[in-house]
Each structure stands twice: as C-alpha cells, then as structure tokens.
C-alpha cells in the first residue's frame, strides 16, 4: 500500500517550516511540540500500518485555546492539519501529511460531566470509548456503540469515522448516539453543533460531522447519549453445513420480526483460525456459524431466544446452542472478538476489508471471494456483521513475499467494487481515509464528488484539514481511470487528461 502514491492531490510543498515551528513554539510548551524524526516516528501511521508518513511537526495541545491557536497559525501559513485520536483507524484517516501538522488530541482525556438523570456524558475527544461505559456503569447506563477497538479508540475518532460495532442493528451507529459536538474550524472559530435537546435549529450539521474523517473541523468536546444497560443478555450459536443456509437464516430471523442485539457470521476458515486461539467451542465441521444475541428483561430474552432457536432450526441449522450463563456467553463471543488477532497468528499479515452489501447478496459475495482467492492465490477468512450486511473479509498475505501485498490490495479492491455493484458501499464503518480513496471514484459520480468538495469548503474553504483523504479530487479519479458514469455522460469531460 506504501506503493500507492498520492498523485493528483494538491501540493503543499514549500511551506516555511522554520516559521511554522517558531509560531507553534509560541503557543505550545516545549514538550508539546515534536519535530525531530525520532520523536515524530510513533505518529507516522495509524492502524493501517502499510501507509507511513512523517509530518512536519506533531502538536500535542491540552487546551481548546491551544487548539484554536494552532489552527489559526496553520490557516495563516497554509499548512495542512491532520487530527488524531488513539490512531486505531484502519483506513489511514489519521496518517500524517508530509507538509503538515499532526494534531494529537490524546491529552483531551477528561470526562467533563456525566449526568445520569439526563443520561448524557460530556467528554473530551481523547476519552476512550470503553471508558465512557465504565464511568456510566455505576448508574446502570452505558455508551452503546462498541467498535472492536473500544478499549483503545477514542470518542473523537469514533465521531470522525461514525464508528459502528457489533450491536449497531439494534442500537445504532455513532451518529445515532451523539447529541452534540463542539469543534474548531481551521479559522479557529468555535462551532457548537447540536445540543442536549433531541434536535437543534438549522441544518443537521451533526450528521455531517459524524463520519467526516477530520475534514470539516477539529472536535474538542462531545456529548453522547447513554443507554440503560439491559438486565440480561444471552447468545445463541447456530451451525450450518452450507453458507447459503446460514445467510437465509439471518433473513428469516429478521422476517420473524426479531431484531437481535447482535448477529454475526463466521465462515469455516475463520472459525478454524480462531478456535485453537480462543477455545470458544465452535463446531469446526460447520461451513458457517451464526451468533445471535438477545438482550432485555429475563422474560423478554427467554421468549426471543426461543423464537430465534426455532427459526434457526427451521432453516436447517445442524446444531443450536444457547449460552447457559454469562461465562458461556462471553466464551461464545470470545472467538468472534479474537478473529483479527487469531488471523494475525496464522498469517504474517492480513488486510481487513469493510464493504457492506444488502444481506441477500451474501452468498453471491462469498462465492465471488472464493473465486478471487484462486485468482490471486491468497487465502481469505470471512467475518461478517450479518445483521447489517457489513463484511470483514480478512485477506491473508505476507508482506515479505514479493508482490503479495500488491495482490492483496487488488483482491481487496475487487471486493469493494463488487460491494458497489451489489448495491452496497465500499466502507461500512472503517472510513475511506487514504485506503479506499480510489474506490470512491467507482461509487460516486463527478457531480456527487464535486458536491462533497463544496460541503468541505463550507467548513474549510482553504482545504487544509486532512487534505488528500476521504474524497478524491476529480484529477485523481481521472488518473485512477475508474469513474462512475451516470446516464452515459462522459466523465470529467472538461478536465485535461494526463
């Protein structure tokens, strides 16, 4: 992936580095400004480690005033700014810009206020996702979105990426659980978006901020909604000797009017990878397993689990087991949650995809992936948020083997393009970042991409926040050579060709 250039993006080279550092040194204490390569090295990549870039400088502010001052300096010098939380992004959203400032929000780690009566928490952006639930637990409340990286990822990053998790089908994404965002524009102005009421006057800028990948403004405070903790949860494990039958069972559960708290699928390569590692007790002869969770009051859960069991049996499950206690529930989940590290154990490297498709296309997609495994000579394990159609194929490769990374990337790109073709999207919850920016050209038309650029310009007219991410320039799409053409119009007719 490091092979991929950032051609056709705007050039910020030639900025006055010395002027930038001396200006920043005026507003930040010495230890909050890093510019020697060895100091900046830990910031050169996020969770997408194949892409690395040292920034001009790393700024570690600890107050909103410092953030405003840094942004004003960067705006006046025309220097790009990339905000970073815990750096767990899987799409390179927090990868630094070579001519820019990496703005780490790691010091913003205070829970400002937790109001159990109003069921809200006001938190700084560097607060970890799980820390909110831990703080709310004493009040019988929690923060519902639970991305797999929740022990490490921060709420600022969750808003920037509109993070999901295992329980989105029932409890929603970040966008459904954030009431208010306070953010600073590149011009250093404070935006109060949303409120502690359920809606606010004006356009729904909260919807824009969620999933904006640090392109619109820098978040300095977030108010999240807290949800009452269900009294009990129970999970059902169902085994299938055919992947299609497992897919049908997912549809049948929904058709029965049930919205499970979580519904996950793993194929055989995935269960075989995790079992020796997690000892979850998965049946290894099954072609696919489903995990379906029910939560609520004891009466409600007992009723729902029984209904799901009947649906699964009716769909030809070869085995159905309900967790008998909390320890067994956690054990059933442990395999799913350990899928990524387990795959990391059987393969030197893996590439995690994030396409979402209508669920009815699942079997078709898995067949296509099997064919791509042959085409590219690489193995793939599939874990799948079955309830909402979000696939995480894990393509196994060895970065030290010649051309395997390149094959893995092409394999992944084909999966993404297939996702668009099936009526889905290139990214369900990991974001576009730098990783999937070229596939944006397949999903959106020229006019749609232009509108995205205009939306960005409404917040950031100079285009300094996280440039080169999330939304490709039209030139880039021309170079990439793949365009989504609407109504037979010639794409980008007015642009010079290279």
């Amino acid at each position, binding site marked *: 992936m490091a092979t991929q250039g950032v051609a056709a993006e705007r050039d910020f080279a030639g900025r006055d580095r010395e002027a930038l550092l001396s200006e920043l040194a005026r507003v930040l204490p010495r230890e909050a400004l890093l510019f020697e390569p060895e100091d900046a090295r830990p910031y050169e990549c996020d969770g997408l480690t194949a892409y690395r870039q040292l920034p001009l400088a790393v700024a570690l502010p600890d107050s909103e005033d410092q953030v405003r001052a840094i942004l004003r300096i960067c705006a006046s010098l025309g220097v790009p700014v990339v905000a970073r939380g815990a750096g767990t992004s899987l799409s390179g959203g927090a990868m630094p810009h070579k001519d820019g400032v990496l703005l780490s929000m790691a010091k913003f780690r205070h829970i400002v206020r937790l109001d159990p009566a109003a069921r809200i928490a006001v938190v700084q952006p560097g607060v970890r996702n799980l820390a909110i639930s831990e703080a709310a637990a004493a009040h019988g409340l929690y923060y519902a979105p639970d991305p797999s990286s929740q022990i490490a990822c921060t709420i600022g990053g969750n808003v920037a990426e509109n993070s999901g998790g295992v329980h989105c089908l029932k409890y929603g994404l970040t966008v459904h659980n954030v009431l208010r965002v306070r953010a600073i524009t590149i011009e250093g102005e404070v935006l109060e978006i949303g409120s502690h009421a359920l809606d606010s006057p004006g356009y*729904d800028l909260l919807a824009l901020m969620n999933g904006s990948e640090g392109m619109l403004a820098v978040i300095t405070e977030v108010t999240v909604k807290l949800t009452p903790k269900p009294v009990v949860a129970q999970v059902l494990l169902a085994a299938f000797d055919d992947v299609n039958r497992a897919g049908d069972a997912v549809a049948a559960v929904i058709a029965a009017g049930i919205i499970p708290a979580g519904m996950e699928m793993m194929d055989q390569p995935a269960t075989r990878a995790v079992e020796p590692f997690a000892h979850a007790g998965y049946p290894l002869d099954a072609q696919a397993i489903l995990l379906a969770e029910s939560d609520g009051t004891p009466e409600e859960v007992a*009723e729902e689990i029984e209904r799901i069991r009947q649906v699964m049996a009716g769909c030809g499950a070869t085995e159905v087991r309900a967790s008998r206690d909390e320890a067994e529930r956690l054990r059933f989940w442990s395999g799913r949650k350990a899928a990524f590290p387990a795959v990391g154990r059987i393969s030197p490297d893996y590439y995690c995809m994030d396409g979402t498709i*209508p669920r009815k296309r699942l079997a078709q997609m898995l067949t296509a992936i099997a064919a791509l495994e042959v085409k590219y000579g690489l193995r793939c394990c599939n874990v799948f948020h079955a309830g909402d*159609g979000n696939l995480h194929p894990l393509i196994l490769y060895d970065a030290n083997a010649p051309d395997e990374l390149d094959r893995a990337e092409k394999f992944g790109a084909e999966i993404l393009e297939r996702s668009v073709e099936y*009526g*889905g999207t290139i990214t*369900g919850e990991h974001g576009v970042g730098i990783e999937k920016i070229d596939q944006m050209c397949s999903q959106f038309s020229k006019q749609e991409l232009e509108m995205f650029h205009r939306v960005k310009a409404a917040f950031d007219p100079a285009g300094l926040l996280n440039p080169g991410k999330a939304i490709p320039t039209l030139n880039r799409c021309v170079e990439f050579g793949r365009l989504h053409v609407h109504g037979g119009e010639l794409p980008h007719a007015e642009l010079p060709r290279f």
Partner: protein
Amino acid sequence: MNAVLQDFQETIREAAAAKRLLRIRGGGSKDFYGGPLEGEILDTTPYAGVVAYEPTELVVSVRAGTPLAELEALLADHGQMLAFEPPHFGAAATIGGALAAGLSGPRRAAAGAARDFVLGARIVDGRGDALAFGGQVMKNVAGYDVSRLMVGAMGTLGLIVEASLKVLPRPAAEASLRFEMPQAAAIATLNRWAGRPLPVSASCWRGGVLAIRLSGARAAVEAAARELGGQRVDRDDGFWRALRDHAHEFFSADTPLWRLSLPSTTPPLDGHGETLIEWGGAQRWVRTSAEGAAVREAAVAAGGSATLFRAREKSCPVFQPLQGPLAKIHRRLKDAFDPAGILNPGRM
C-alpha cells in the same frame, strides 16, 4: 431515465437560469409550517411509488411523492413500520414532505428521529443535477452524510426525489398506562424511567395526567405494566395517533403553538401558557400569545430552542435564528447546494 425526474431537473435548471423562485410541495399538508411560501409550485406528487421493498432487508426505497398513508399501509402488511412515527397533518401528506420537514412523532425519544432512519437519498440540487448519496445498507460511511443533511432542511438544499429508509418490525405487544401527576413530578418520573431498561415507546403529559405507551415483546410489556402500575388502557392507538397528528384537543385552540425542544430534565417552564409534554420531557408544546422573544429566551436559557410551529400571524421568525460561525456555514451550504437561491427561499 424517468420522464418526471427529467422534468424536475429541467424545471430547476430553467428556474436557476432565470433566478425564478420554486416552492417544492408534496401533499401540501405542511404549508402552515416554516417561513412564508414563495415561488412557483414544483409538485412532487407525480413522482410516487415504492421502488424497492424487501422486508427481510429492513429497507424500503420510496419516491418522494408517495403518500405517507400508502407507504405505511404497505409496511403494515408485512408487520413493519416507520419507527419515527411521522405526523400526518392531512391525508395527502407525502414521505418526501415528512423527510424535508424532518418531523418525528411520539416514538422519537425511544426509537430515533426521521434522520436516524434515512440510509440514502436521491436529490436534485439547485443546479438541476441528479445526485445520489448514502445507499440501501445500514452501515455506510463513504462520503459525507448528505442524505441526513437533507432531512429537516425544508427543501432549501435540494429536492428529495427518493429515499431509502430503515424500517423496523411492529412491536408484538403494546399497552398504555395513565397516572395522575403534576408536571414537575411527570418530568422527573419520565427521566427516571428512561434511565432503566423499560419498553416505554411514547409519553404525553397534559393537564395533570401522564400517559405512557409500552411496546415490545409481550413478556416485556406485561412485566413493565405490572411494575409501573397506573391505569391500564389496552387499545389506545387512537390516542397516540391523535397526538402524532395534532388531532388532540390541545392542538385545536387558536393561540399560537410553539414547539420547544429542550434537555429532557428541564423543570417546568412556568408562566408560558398551556403545555403538553412529549418525548420523555424533551419536546414541549406550548400555546401562548406571549412575545416570541420571551418564549425563545426561556428555551435558550434551558439549553434548547423554540419553533413557532403554528400561528395565524407569524410575528417573529419561525425557526430560531443562528449566529456567528454557524450562520456562516449555513449560508455557505445553501450556496453549495443552491447557488441561485431558488429552492424554497425563506422557508427556513
């Protein structure tokens, strides 16, 4: 491409070139809502019908001019519903109008707002370009969330021509409970219940009586009803529908009707006329002839906002005016989507 859609694009292109104002209109049931109506009517009702509906995907794609009642009847046939419970202010109400106005009904505090259920939208912007954002899947973070931005924008950013919505199963069981309770106690009680895993799907306090609706699995509804007590009313759909559609007697008076959106724990705002409370305390309807500025001031002081929802004479702006950098970003967004400023100007 569909001829009606092409007509829409052509109409908007021509209007933009001539700087002629357009007024987007579905069933016209919400003509009373928002700023003054200006411009030539662009009627969305010819663009109607369900494009795709697969109950097991929990997604329906529907054209803007489709009557809300027709869409809801189709969903009901499959045991599903629009969980944001959009109000019908007339039989002609369309789904496009419901989304453009962004109004949600009694289930809002429990289930989410109209914007929460929008997965994707096809729009025609103020240039006449047909654009598609989002999609038909639950999780989608490719590009800015323009589909949700359209919700509640009152047609000022573009004409919504089609939307894909997440739908949910209808609850297996419902029951209503009534309690005699003064306003302050009702607000405290609703917030306390909302902090517990109870299946409360709607609430209404008015004139010393608190009504709540329980929805969900039969076992959960029964257990909650037993625990909470009060007077049980089993088939109470009519009451909640009347509340949703403002057919309740409270809404029939002639005094200006304000909608206050407040933090749910806000204590009673005394001295501001007759009050009806919904959404667990977060939405308060107030009938008052008081100065708009005074009503707004009280709402802002409580951390919320006030909308002049219905009034014969609109003596102050309907929506709370925005200030500073937020106002600037709103103007730029309007320019981005509608550079000629022809779509529903003044409506928001």
